[in-house]
Every structure is written in structure tokens, then in C-alpha cells.
């Protein structure tokens, strides 16, 4: 019988090994680069808020434990394969037949139990820390309602309704102001995930979930719907805009105002109210009181359209109003079959809703 692993010329083996190392290096390089990417990151290892920071600390501990276990066991495996592989010409006799050993098996039962015990302790402590946090009286409260495929955001105490962009104040050493989110759904299950701020919590119809964040650095944080919710699950992005307390108050003040009514956009206003736009959208202070789509009262204050499917630029807005299905296929806003002129007018009107 031939020796087992098919023997190729040594040079071929060396070449293959070299290729594998090169490929590994390239991949490792890309991974490092991807994790180092500072712009628009959704990296769970760059948390800028509680509870994501606590999660990160815990996860690094767990990864360290798992890495040690991996190195020990994989090392044993590699050693065993190399040390005890059958050598050429040694096929005649059988090795000593060992059936087991109670002592050894006891050892490798007890050791994992001890590790598991440690894991249970750190896990339960962290669960309690995060889940059992009570809302302080001054905490900001907001309600996030998942829709196919956008986010409705309400601040009940402030009387604000907006969409797809959650504004919250930053906390710092002088003042901690967490935001408590009540999560609901209008249709199917969704999941709220902004990796740099917190882990996921689902938005489930006929159920209220709660989560909290306490970001410390201003900026815009990106996230996705993380529970499959139908056709456009992929284009259901959430943005969390963290502002200084002063900027946040200014934003609140702006949002609380009624919709602008500029004379220059009067024609577009007529077209808007003559079409069925009003059946789905609300513009506060007007007869447009639809509940099915996002509130448009201050839509120009938002960065994106259609839950991150298009930028909120004149061109983006025009394309969206003309044919939503071309921008976000399958979305629930129909193509209203308007003429170019009508589209221009409506876009002109919408652009006044600052």
C-alpha cells in the first residue's frame, strides 16, 4: 500500500503553502483595513455609547477565552495527527488498544464545566446590568415604530413625529442623558440595530419592547433593520443623529413648528393636495393627515429618502417622486403617473418643508 497522503514533489507543496500564506495575508490585510475604516462605520468593536461599550468589553473577554481553547485543542489535534500518523512500512502491527481512562475523562469533563461556570457568571451580570437599568426622570423617551420598510419615530412628550432619523442628545461627564426607546411595529417583525450604540432589539407587532442608549460622541450613526421583514429588508436603514444638548434643543424647536407655507410653492401645494399623497402622508397643520407613510412636515431636515434608499438631494427627491419603484423596487409608495411638470411642482413644494 502507498503511504497515505498522496506525495507530490516537494516543490509543488512549498508553492501551495506559499500561495496559502499569501492568500491568508491578503485576507488578513483586508480584514484589518475593514475594521480600521473610520468613515460610516458600523463596527461593533468601535462602540461610542453604552450599552455597546459594556458588550464590547464582555465580548473581548469571551473571544480571548475561546481563542485560548481553540489554540490548545487545535494544537493537540495537529500534534496528534503529525505525531501518530502512520509511517510508510509500518502497516504490519496494530497499536496498543486503549479503551478509555476514567481519570482523563473526568479531567476533561470538569475543566469545561469550570470554564462554563465563569462564562455564566460574567454573562448573567452583564445581562442584569443592561436589561435592568431604570430610566431616570430626565431621560429622553422616544417611540420607534417599524413599518415595511421605514422607521416611524415619535417623541410623545415633545409632540414630534419624524422618520428614519432618530435625534438624541449626547451625554458627557457633566450630564448623563440616556434615551429610552419604546419599540413597536405596525406590520411585521423588524429589529433595531445601530452597532456602535447597542445590540439589537426587535420591533414586534402587538408587543412593546424597550431598549436604551447613552451615546457620548456627537455624529451620525448608521444601522440596519436586522430582522427579515419582506422585499425591501435590505433598504431599511436607520440613522441616529447624536447632537450636543444645545443643538438637540434647537432641533426640537424646529421640529415643533408647523409646516412652512411659502407663497413660491403654492402651485406645488395644489398638486400635492389634489393627488392622493394626503392619504398616506401627514403634513402638520394641513388637511394631509395620512398615517401610512412618513410624516413630511419637516422632511427637508432629513438626510435621506425612503429609509436610506436615496440621498435627500433635489435630484434624489425628483427621482423618488417621479417613480418610487425605480428607486426602491417593491416599496409601498406607488408610481403616481405624474407629468414632468407636476413632478417639478411637487418637488418644489416639498423642498419648502424644512
Amino acid at each position: 500500500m502507498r503511504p497515505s497522503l498522496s506525495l507530490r514533489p516537494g516543490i509543488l507543496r512549498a508553492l501551495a503553502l506559499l500561495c496559502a500564506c499569501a492568500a491568508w495575508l491578503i485576507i488578513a490585510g483586508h480584514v484589518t483595513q475593514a475594521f480600521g475604516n473610520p468613515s460610516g462605520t458600523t463596527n461593533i468593536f468601535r462602540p461610542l455609547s453604552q450599552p455597546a461599550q459594556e458588550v464590547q468589553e464582555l465580548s473581548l473577554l469571551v473571544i480571548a477565552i475561546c481563542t485560548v481553547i481553540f489554540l490548545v485543542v487545535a494544537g493537540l489535534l495537529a500534534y496528534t495527527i503529525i505525531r501518530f500518523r502512520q509511517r510508510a512500512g509500518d502497516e504490519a502491527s496494530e497499536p496498543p488498544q486503549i479503551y478509555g481512562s476514567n481519570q482523563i475523562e473526568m479531567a476533561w469533563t470538569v475543566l469545561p464545566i469550570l470554564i462554563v461556570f465563569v462564562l455564566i457568571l460574567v454573562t448573567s451580570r452583564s445581562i442584569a446590568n443592561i436589561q435592568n437599568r431604570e430610566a431616570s426622570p430626565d431621560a429622553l423617551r422616544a417611540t420607534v415604530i417599524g413599518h415595511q420598510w421605514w422607521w416611524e419615530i415619535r417623541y410623545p412628550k415633545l409632540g414630534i413625529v419624524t422618520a428614519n432619523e432618530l435625534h438624541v442628545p449626547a451625554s458627557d461627564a457633566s450630564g448623563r442623558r440616556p434615551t429610552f426607546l419604546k419599540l413597536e411595529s405596525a406590520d411585521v417583525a423588524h429589529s433595531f440595530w445601530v452597532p456602535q450604540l447597542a445590540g439589537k432589539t426587535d420591533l414586534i407587532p402587538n408587543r412593546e419592547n424597550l431598549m436604551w442608549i447613552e451615546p457620548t460622541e456627537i455624529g451620525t450613526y448608521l444601522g440596519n433593520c436586522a430582522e427579515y421583514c419582506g422585499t425591501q429588508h435590505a433598504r431599511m436603514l436607520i440613522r441616529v443623529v447624536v447632537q450636543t444638548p444645545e443643538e438637540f434643543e434647537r432641533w426640537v424647536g424646529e421640529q415643533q413648528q408647523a409646516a412652512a407655507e411659502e407663497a413660491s410653492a403654492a402651485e406645488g401645494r395644489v398638486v400635492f393636495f389634489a393627488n392622493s399623497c394626503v392619504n398616506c402622508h401627514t403634513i402638520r397643520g394641513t388637511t394631509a393627515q395620512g398615517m401610512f407613510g412618513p410624516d413630511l412636515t419637516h422632511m427637508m431636515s432629513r438626510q435621506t429618502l425612503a429609509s436610506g434608499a436615496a440621498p435627500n438631494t433635489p435630484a434624489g427627491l425628483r427621482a423618488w417622486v417621479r417613480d418610487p419603484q425605480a428607486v426602491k423596487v417593491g416599496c409601498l409608495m406607488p408610481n403616481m403617473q405624474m407629468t414632468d411638470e407636476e413632478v417639478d411642482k411637487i418637488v418644489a413644494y416639498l423642498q419648502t418643508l424644512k
Partner: protein
Amino acid sequence: MASQEIALIDERQPGTSFVERLHGLVITVDHKKLGLMYVGTALGFLLVAGLMALAIRMQLAVPNNTLLEPDVFNRFFTMHGTAMVFLVGMPIIAGLGNYLVPLMIGTRDMAFPRLNAFGYWMFLFGGLLLYFSYLGAPGLAGHGSAPDVGWFAYAPLTGRAFSRGHGTDYWILSLLLTSVGSTVSAINVLATVFALRCRGMTLMRMPLFVWLMVVTNFMILLALPALSASQVMLLIDRYLGGHFFDTQAGGSAVIWQHFFWIFGHPEVYILIIPAFACVSEIVPVFSRKPIFGYPVMVGATVMIGLISVSVWAHHMFSVGMTSVGNTFFAISTFLVAVPTGIKIFNWLGTMYGGKIRLELPMIFCLGFLFQFLIAGLTGVMLAVVPFNWQLTDSYFVVAHFHYTLVGGFLSGMFAGFYYWYPKTSGRLLDRRLGFWHFWLFFIGFHLTFDTMHFPGLLGMPRRVYTYDAGRGWETLNFITSLGALIQAAGVLCLVVNILRSWKKGKVAGNDPWDAWTLEWATTSPPPDYNFETLPVVRSRRPLWDLKHPEDPDWKYD
């Protein structure tokens, strides 16, 4: 050698026409033919569902790709997942159990041969029905096609308001059929093991393979009814005005998740334990030592079976359970790691001090051990609830369970194919092509699934049909897709190998691996009646006793 070859050809009765042979398959109640039909059909579905995975990977190779429409993509991942679990995993298990259990316990057939055939045909028609949905599911105004609700079909996306047409109905009905098949097949294996063991084969002398099949089939009986019952409830919701999961009428979406995972988590162990079973047979034979700590291995498997029915809600850490609920399911999930770890150590203990022959079945087992170790450790990470809040429903989870099911289950099954193929056909699978299969698949697997963990850590959710550039996902996804192509090339080698070696492979003889369990005591392929005279055994390794009369195992029993 020559005379053996002639005998083999005689077994196959040359001259019977294609139609006659086909008729033979339709009417057969022979456990060996049914076993091969199960595995063959499953391989067919593996190719179809694998092609769907390839299409998914091509779509995700670059950002903002337009190869697949969103709805087409959603159908593909639903069909891929459903088919891989119910039309590939389950029937391969049933096939292996069917073919090998009667041979290993020294009997002539399964306890209920006709029920056995019934089970196969239920599975086949269930599978065909699932794929027929592409033609049959469109309903009013052309809504609907194949199911697009994901393989765990979370409510209320499956309600009539959100799932129009009949895609979800096909998903329910086809799985109900295959569940009937799996259930009768499980009953059959259990009855066979408990009633038909040959003389001397006490429970603690059964090959580990048989023990693990017993545990798996018990779990099938325990878990599948939860799925079938909730599917019937969903059907009632959809057509008879029930409100079990209809949230708009006060139903509960979370209860569906509980019901599904009460089935779904044991299901994962149902799939992986047969892979353990293959590894537990192959590692000893190719290390030339008996399995290390047989009673502990049996105990650990039973423990896995028991604990695994209490871990289901670790799929649901983000649904807003109480902190007590989350802690309970974290603890039970950590606990299941203990017996699983014991199994890995015992396989290592079996290899240690042996003479390891690096033949094809063995190297697939080594791949299994290495990959399953990693899958287990990422599983431990996922059990850490706060970490899970970040990882769940991201590509990290997708990488984790593909590590378990491809790196674990499928590698174990490949090892089994190379090991038992000579028994079923009388011929060895080609060694050269086999090594091509192993290396292509191994390299492709690691390119795909090692890399896939990282987009998850970088915030990429699962089940998205596309993504924007700029979050560090592009290159990683491209490498992942590249690996998928290499894996496909590996599987192609296996398929060619299986087809070509059936008639042209090297003749294997009865016992090509110098093994110890009873299936190697009969001819390859075995006659219809398996054994001329039923064997009598005195230890766990009857063929070892036969080959080593100076040092038989039964001395130590």
C-alpha cells in the same frame, strides 16, 4: 480478485432494462435500496439548493448588484435554507440510518419495510411539492411564487396580509409531508434497533453509530411535532380565520418563534449527531484503536439530546425576553457545550497513540474536527447574551451555522460517503479525484465561511439582497463569493466521482478499510438478505475478535 469481480457483476443482473430497474426502485421495500434512494435524492436537492446559494453569493459579490431582483433573492434564500435542512439534511440522515443500522446490528431489514418505503415517497413528494411552488403558488393578481418568508417563516410575515399568493401554503404543506416521512423513518429506526439486534448485541455493544442514530431519531420524534403543529396552526390562521399568530387580531408573533425553535434547535442537533456518528466510526478504524471512552461517548450524546430541548430561545435573545429568561437560556446553552467538548476530546483520545491512516474518510473527519471546534466556539460566543445582541441576525450567525452544517454536518457526511461507498457499490471512490474534492472544498469552505464572520462584526445584517459600499463589506463579500465557486468545483468532483466509480471504480472487496463492525462482514454490496446466517457477537468489535483471536475485545468486556 477476479472471481470477486464476476460475483459483483452477477449481483447487478445485467440485461434488465431501464424501465424494469425503475420499476424495481418504485416497488422496493429493501432498506439498502431505500437508503441509497434517500441519499441519491438528497444529493440531487443538494445540487439545486447549492446552485441557489451560488446565485445568492453572485448577487452579494459586489455592492448594489442587480443580478437578482429583491423578491427573487428572498425566494432563493428561503428555498436554499428550507431545502438544505428538510430535503438534504434530513433525508441523508434517514438514508444513512436505513442503509447502515440493519447491517450494523446484524439483521436482514428494517422493522417495518413497507413503512420505510412510505417514508421515502413522502419525502420525495414533499420535496417536489416545495419546488413546484414556483409554478403553482401564484394567486390572485399574480401575487406569490416560491416561498419568500425565510426558512423559519416568522409570523406575521406569513399571514395572508403580508404573504399573498400561496408561497407560504406550499412551504407548510410540503414540509408537513416530509415531516410525516421523517417521523415514520424515525419510528422505524428505533423499532429496528430495539427489536432486531442480532444475538449477543446488547445495547452497550452496539456500534456508536447506532447509538447516535437512536438519539437523533428520538429527537426527531420529540421535535418535529412542534413544527407540524405550529404549521397547522398557521394554516388555520391563513384559511379558517384563526388568530394564533395574527397580531392584528391579538395573536402573538413571539409564540410562533417559540414553537418554531422548540423544533428548530433540536433540529440542529438532529443534523449534527449523525455527523458525530460517522466520525465515531471512522476515526477509530483509521487510527487503528477502539473509540476512547465508549460509555462516556454514549452518555455525552444522550446528554446533548436532553439538554438540547431546553436551549431553543437562544435564537430569540433580541425579542425582549426578561433578564431571567435570557439568563436561563444562556446557561442551558453553555451547558450543552460540556458534553460536546467531551466528544471532541474523546475523538482526540482515540487518535492519540494510534497509527493514523490519512485516507479520504479520515481526512474529511479531521476537517470535521477542526471546523466543528471553531463552530462550537463561535456558538459559545453566541450564547453570551449581550454579545449575542450584537451578533444575532448578522452575517456572523450565518457564518456560525454554516460552519456547523457545512464544516460539521456535510464534512461528516462526505467522510461517510467515502467510507461506506465501497460497501454500497463494491467499488472504491477514486482516490485522486477524492483528494481534489477535499482540497477544493476545504479551501473554498474556509475562504467563504472564515471570511463571512467579519462582515457580521462590521454590522452587516443577514438576508439583505444588496448593500452600499463604504462600510468595509465589499472585499470581504467578494472573497466569500469566490470561495463559494471553489466549493462548487469541489462538489462537482464528488458528483463525477460517485457516478464514475459506480461502474469503473477499483474493486473494493468486502472489507477495504480493515474495519471492525458487522457491515464489513458481508459482501459488497450486501445481498438482499444481508447475511447468510445471522451473526453472533461477543463484543463491540466483532470483526476485531475474528481477526485477532489471540487478543479479542470480549476479554475486556
